């Protein structure tokens, strides 16, 4: 299909094309104009954006964890949190620049189109949308369009100020377009503008879209090569990789051509960019495997980021769906820590040791206890709770299942299971566990006779039935006889249905009777945070930490709440404390079980949380204007670098 003579011909044609710049003259001129324009007016601010992209990505992740307790519920409205955050972000300059850039671009697109010649364009809602973007009546924030209450006129921005002199929003596009006709030699140029700018708008919006999955390097390099094209440098067809293969297959004429184009920087940039892409692919592999497993309806570890993105999709359909069944084999087996020094301790003393020790010691002591006596439901129950605190949800579930297997009347193990299942989005199992709590309760098993709806199978029906059971249970113990466990169960249920005010009341009632339950304080705080009562949430988290200063989840939630209030320095200090505690915990575990087996915890654990903490810290550093420290969060992750300036 080809031969060398054809390539020679092609080469000639191509060189001619380079020289003549075939196509509308205006198109080429526009490229140069735009590049100049960009340089004069600050361009589109690439340097800050990639970091902000990642920061926003993490912020979205964290938004989901705002409401998390030691066993997390997913935030039902991560967008809301992020929007709040975006609205309060303490870097208004960058945000303003992004909106201006977008408005400028929209304005340029409008300028290139002559609506007068075309009735349809005059009436086009897309053109009207562009106009609104240009006039900053609407802007893109995060993943949404947001009406701007105060459209900002950028000083020194000639496009915006020029447009403001025009008649805004009255559809008399003809006025300003005639001004531009002199710049437009032919209408031909217009389409170049409209399509290229449409893409440009899209590209730059995607650049700052938090959900964007690009590596920041790639985005930068892509922009680089684009800009070079605009400057009239004709790109090589293909990057270095292609040139290599081309070299191998062809002869001298081709070689010349390749060499000529290889000298362009773009080839190298593209090569690098493609390599970046391959790195990304490798990291994506394990996610793909996890995804395929999920098709068989196995629950997955929520710390898996890519999974969470899909989760959001699916949760939208959850109204009728029941989530997943907890059929993950990891729930059926508990994986004990090797080299457990408590295995040689006196079994009678283990529960005592567990109650007195720190989290690591407690877990090891309890694991020793249940290995000695697998029928010890109380020990399994405690182990489950400690694993929840340790951020290891699947281990917690495994332990709790063992507890109820050994003794179905280990009542609050069912309650703890419900909490963990809800966080793993196994709603059916959560409802089943709560129902089991009721059925095994000596006090309340009777309510199953008086509440209707036990046959319903939809999520809505199950929810209403189980809530009904607990409401009935609460009625049997009114006023001073109030049962905190019933209230906690109701609090859990109301969180699931997003009835946060009710959940707050239930948890508060339970806390009156259990003021020392630090995990309950954390649940309470998370519910308050979900209902946007940030200051009350902070108070609740502080209560949790006063009781148990090493409770990392509460510290992390506290940091998020501080960020919500714009208190970035405090947030950073809480995050640094959390990291410091975590390091101590890891060291302790390493000492006890020996470093050869104390590898990274397979289920994420505190280690898995660590990633989120570092990312949130990085974002806080940017908010404080300390990009040097933000870099450290990425690279050396050295806590000592922060000790001079932060208190932790």
């Amino acid at each position, binding site marked *: 299909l080809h031969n060398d003579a054809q390539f020679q011909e*092609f080469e000639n044609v191509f060189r001619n094309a380079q020289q003549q710049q075939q196509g509308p003259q205006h198109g080429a001129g526009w490229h140069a104009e735009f590049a100049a324009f960009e340089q004069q007016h600050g361009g589109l601010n690439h340097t800050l954006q990639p970091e902000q992209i990642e920061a926003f990505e993490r912020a979205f992740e964290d938004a989901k964890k705002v409401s998390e307790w030691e066993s997390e519920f997913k935030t039902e409205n991560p967008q809301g949190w992020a929007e709040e955050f975006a609205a309060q972000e303490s870097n208004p300059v960058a945000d303003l620049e992004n909106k201006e850039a977008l408005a400028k671009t929209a304005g340029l697109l409008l300028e290139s189109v002559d609506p007068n010649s075309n009735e349809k364009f005059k009436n086009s809602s897309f053109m009207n949308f562009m106009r609104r973007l240009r006039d900053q009546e609407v802007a893109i924030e995060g993943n949404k369009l947001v009406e701007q209450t105060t459209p900002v006129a950028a000083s020194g921005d000639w496009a915006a100020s020029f447009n403001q002199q025009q008649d805004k929003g009255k559809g008399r596009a003809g006025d300003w377009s005639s001004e531009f006709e002199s710049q437009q030699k032919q209408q031909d140029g217009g389409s170049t503008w409209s399509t290229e700018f449409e893409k440009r708008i899209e590209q730059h919006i995607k650049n700052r879209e938090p959900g964007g999955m690009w590596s920041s390097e790639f985005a930068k390099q892509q922009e680089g090569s684009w800009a070079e094209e605009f400057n009239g440098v004709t790109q090589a067809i293909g990057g270095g990789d292609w040139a290599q293969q081309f070299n191998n297959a062809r002869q001298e004429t081709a070689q010349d051509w390749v060499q000529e184009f290889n000298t362009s920087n773009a080839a190298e940039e593209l090569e690098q960019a493609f390599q970046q892409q391959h790195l990304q692919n490798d990291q994506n592999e394990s996610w793909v495997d996890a995804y395929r497993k999920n098709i068989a309806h196995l629950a997955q570890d929520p710390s898996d980021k890519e999974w969470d993105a899909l989760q959001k999709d699916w949760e939208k359909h959850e109204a009728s769906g029941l989530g997943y069944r907890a059929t993950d084999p990891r729930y059926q087996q508990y994986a004990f820590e090797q080299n457990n020094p408590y295995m040689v301790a006196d079994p009678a003393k283990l529960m005592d040791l567990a109650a007195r020790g720190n989290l690591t010691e407690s877990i090891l002591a309890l694991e020793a206890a249940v290995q000695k006596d697998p029928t010890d439901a109380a020990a399994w129950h405690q182990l489950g709770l400690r694993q929840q605190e340790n951020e290891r949800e699947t281990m917690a579930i495994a332990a709790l299942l063992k507890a109820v297997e050994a003794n179905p009347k280990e009542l609050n193990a069912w309650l703890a299971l419900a909490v963990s299942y809800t966080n793993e989005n196994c709603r059916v199992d959560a409802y089943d566990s709560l129902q089991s709590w009721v059925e095994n309760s000596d006090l309340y098993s009777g309510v199953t006779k008086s509440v209707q709806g036990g046959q319903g199978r939809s999520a809505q029906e199950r929810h209403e039935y189980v809530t009904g059971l607990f409401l009935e249970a609460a009625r049997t113990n009114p006023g001073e006889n109030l049962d905190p466990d019933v209230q906690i169960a109701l609090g859990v249920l109301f969180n699931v249905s997003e009835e946060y005010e009710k959940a707050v009341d239930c948890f508060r009632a339970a806390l009156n009777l259990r003021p020392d339950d630090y995990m309950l304080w954390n649940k309470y705080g998370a519910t308050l945070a979900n209902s946007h009562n940030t200051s009350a949430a902070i108070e609740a988290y502080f209560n949790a930490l006063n009781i148990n200063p090493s409770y990392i989840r509460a510290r992390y939630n506290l940091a998020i709440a501080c960020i919500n209030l714009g208190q970035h320095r405090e947030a950073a200090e809480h995050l640094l404390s959390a990291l410091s505690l975590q390091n101590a915990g890891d060291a302790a575990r390493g000492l006890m079980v020996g470093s050869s087996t104390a590898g990274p915890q397979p289920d994420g654990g505190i280690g898995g949380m660590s990633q989120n903490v570092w990312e949130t810290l990085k974002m806080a550093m940017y908010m404080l204007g300390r990009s040097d420290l933000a870099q450290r969060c990425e690279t050396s992750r050295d806590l000592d670098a922060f000790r001079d300036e932060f208190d932790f």
Partner: protein
Amino acid sequence: MFAKHRTTGYNGYAVQWSPFFEHKLAVATASNFGLVGNGRLHILNVGAGPAGGVINTERVFDTQDGLFDVCWSEVNENQLVTASGDGSIKLWDTTLADFPIQNWHEHQREVFSVNWNLVRKDSFLSASWDNTIKLWSQNSPQSLQTFKGHSHCVYAAMWSPHSPSLFASCSGDHTVKLWDTNSPAPVQTILAHGNEVLTLDWNKYQDHTVVTGSVDHTIKVWDMRRPDRELNCLRGHEYAVRKVKCSPHSGSLVASTSYDMTMRMWDITTGDMIEIHDAHTEFVLGVDFNLYRDREIATCAWDESVHVFTPRCLM
């Protein structure tokens, strides 16, 4: 016959008639013109005969990011693949749950087109703004191959209807490239237009003929064996040409859509424009011929509507 269906809240990006069912039409859409927000895949049923013009929604699938293209599987009558603004490609089954049965995420940028192999039917292609084309099998969690050669966004990669391993791509780098899956480098490069080439399609009746559409407003007809000059250049659109489609029923009939908000039909042997469909009120992005009902065409546009109709030239 002229029927309209509103994809309310969503701007249309692509349409494809099912290769298995004469009444089934898939529509890929995005909110806010694809600039921001989510996407939706619509599966529509279009009545014929006495029910002609009746369009029902069989079901919809929602996605986190806008959808730019859709293609039906050639082996499974209920399955189809979508291309998304977040770089992901999803496989759906219209008889199964609300979420995709397979998801691939390798492209670093928007995926602008997906196209199923017509001969061996065992694989499909994706084209992305990350400048690459990828080859996929629905049974493999990773792409089978990545084709790098374009220096700019790849807007489409389309399988030849005649050869199991041959496909062509078009790009913002102004070129059209011919590829063979057995080789990582393009077999042929054509400098097709003086501006970005947004769309291409193979003629179903002449093995080597390819039709391209460009930002330069023109549609060109090429013989891939003679890359130095086009066979014909069709002018008429007032703005960039967004989509070209060769009729499966005629070797000379081509439909095209444009930012001039029209869909036009052409005879590529004479170069004449034979019809203008002017009913859309925003950019028209999608067009497809019904494989079974040879008078029926569907279009979709940013005016949130899908048109199914018989053009005058086919009556």
